[in-house]
């Protein structure tokens, strides 16, 4: 008995050692917003490069920024670009900078679970701001019912759901609200992690979607694909031109049209509340955070290789998951910027 146990132990140890060098493993962490896309990408890329495993953990954009700054992961991912303080903190800590690389375009949609209501609701800017500020508390409030004549909204309390951790999806949502509601801007502000006036916290897009799905009368924001994959109804949002637009490939691409012509060199740009009749107002780029310098050249080349693939073949996978492709000009600019990663 003891001998068998001993041999098993040795066998395991040997297996572990042998395993040690079988694959190059790169770790990234961050946004849950693009997680369905990234998990598909890294899976496909692994199939094409079986010696390379890019392990991506969706812990939220806040986590991505923190861990890549700490150096505990090789790259990060975020839908809320790093602000100047965070960039400076990175520079101070490492002695070199960190670069943003947009990967896809996505959208935050207002998802809801109202018993008996399957229709697509129209939400004005004031309605969304009012609900999240806690001022609008019932589904049959005129601010919501007004643009939705013909829909029988119950007089139930709205259960607001938001993110409990530092989230780029939250950044996009609060960035939008700060633009369309002065009250939100002064009271709460924009950020990856805010002091929510009302609502339940759930961790990750996955959990927010799960909570909305399971909680009647709930209302929250999730990335488009999460609502689609889980057959959750989501509403239209009124854009800056006064049109109620539903999030889809066309409307998200339209939102990015202006920005891609004037893309800043560091790729940090906000496209919420974008001008244009067909633009979906809560759209956003999402970024990979890649250090400007790598001490390990194999890792550097692997990551650069992936980004190149992502900007070319990778873009063919996006639409199946309802993420919009990057505009051509942005892709070209990124390929140039990739050269500066040493």
């Amino acid at each position, binding site marked *: 008995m003891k001998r068998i146990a001993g041999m098993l*132990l040795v066998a*395991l140890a040997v297996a*572990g*050692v042998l*395993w*040690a*060098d*079988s*694959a190059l*493993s790169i*770790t990234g*962490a961050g946004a849950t917003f693009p*997680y*369905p896309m990234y*998990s*598909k990408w*890294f*899976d496909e890329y*692994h199939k094409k490069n079986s010696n390379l*495993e890019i*392990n*991506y*953990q969706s*812990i939220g954009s806040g986590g991505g920024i923190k861990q890549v700054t*700490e*150096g*505990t*992961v090789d790259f990060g991912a975020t839908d809320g670009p790093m602000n100047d303080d965070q960039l400076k903190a990175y520079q101070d800590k490492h002695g070199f900078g960190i670069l943003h690389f947009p990967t896809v375009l996505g959208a935050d949609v207002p998802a809801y679970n109202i018993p008996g209501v399957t229709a697509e609701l129209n939400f004005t800017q004031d309605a969304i701001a009012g609900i999240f500020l806690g001022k609008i508390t019932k589904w049959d409030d005129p601010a919501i019912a007004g643009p939705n004549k013909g829909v029988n909204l119950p007089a139930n309390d709205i259960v607001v759901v938001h993110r409990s951790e530092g989230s780029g999806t939250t950044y996009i949502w609060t960035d939008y609200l700060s633009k369309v509601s002065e009250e939100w801007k002064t009271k709460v502000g924009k950020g990856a992690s805010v002091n929510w006036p009302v609502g339940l916290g*759930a*961790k*990750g897009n*996955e*959990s927010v*979607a*799960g909570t909305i*799905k399971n909680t009647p009368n709930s209302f929250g924001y999730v990335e488009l*694909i*999460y609502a689609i*994959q*889980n057959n*959750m109804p989501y509403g239209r949002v009124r854009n800056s031109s006064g049109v109620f637009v539903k999030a889809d490939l066309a409307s998200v691409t339209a939102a990015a049209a202006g920005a891609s012509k004037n893309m800043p060199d560091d790729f940090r740009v906000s496209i919420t509340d974008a001008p244009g009749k067909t633009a979906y107002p809560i759209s956003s780029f999402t970024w990979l955070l890649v250090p400007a310098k790598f001490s390990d050249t194999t890792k550097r080349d692997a990551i650069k290789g992936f980004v190149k693939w992502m900007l070319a073949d990778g873009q063919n996978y996006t639409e199946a*998951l309802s993420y919009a492709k990057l505009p051509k000009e942005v892709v070209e600019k990124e390929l140039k910027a990739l050269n500066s990663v040493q």
Partner: protein
Amino acid sequence: MSPRLRWRKFVSGFMLTMTGVCAMVAVSVLFLILGYLAIHGGASVNWNFFTKVPVPVGETGGGLANAILGSAKMLLLATLFGVPIGFFGAIYLAEFSGSATAFVVRYAADLLNGVPSIVIGIFAYGLVVHPFKQYSTLAGGFALGLMMIPITLRSTEGFLRGVPNPLREAAMALGASKWKTIATVIVPAAYRGILTAILLAFARVAGETAPLLFTALGNQFWSPGWTHPTASLPVMIYTYALAPYDDWHRQAWAAGLVLLVLILVINIVARAILSRGIAVPRS
């Protein structure tokens, strides 16, 4: 019979019945959990579950093979790290130490035992992940091993002390030195209890999730070697249970069933070992 007596007898019967109800309620929870997991997750404990790694979000057909292996690796590390410290430390306490040192060591072990597992996670992050800038199986194993130390130490010490003195005296009378007595007489006499202690400590940390959040992170692929992040069964259960995908729920239940059955079996085996005999030297 006076009315008062009748009342008192009624109260007595009623209250005692209620205590029986309490006991039944408590015990039935165990079967509720097992039953729920078996019914909902049983079907998903299939070949895929044990051999495949997770597939991209939203697709079906993946498994948790990498999480099972990751947990196994970390538990192995935890045992290799925590058990020797607990075991040899217990030998020191039972056989060599003076009462002052013994008090300090026991106190420290009790302190360590009472630390909430999330705080162990913070400690392991600060000690292993942060300095080496790497989430890893090693860090996870270290955190779990820390939790195994106090359980192993206190139980082993108890069983060593429980070895009857005549055995020790007989060995010494035959001229055996202290260490030889320990190695050939005392430890073998207590080996059942020690084995039980190790198994119980193992079962305790097998289900721990919180310390792994900051140490092993996670991995959708196989984790190569020991210095990379790895998936683990408890963390996957946590992640999948909170998500909206039905396929993930099924896998969470299946994983929960597998984990729970494993832990319960270890507990049952450990108790069986202990109850089969008391301190009897192996021939």
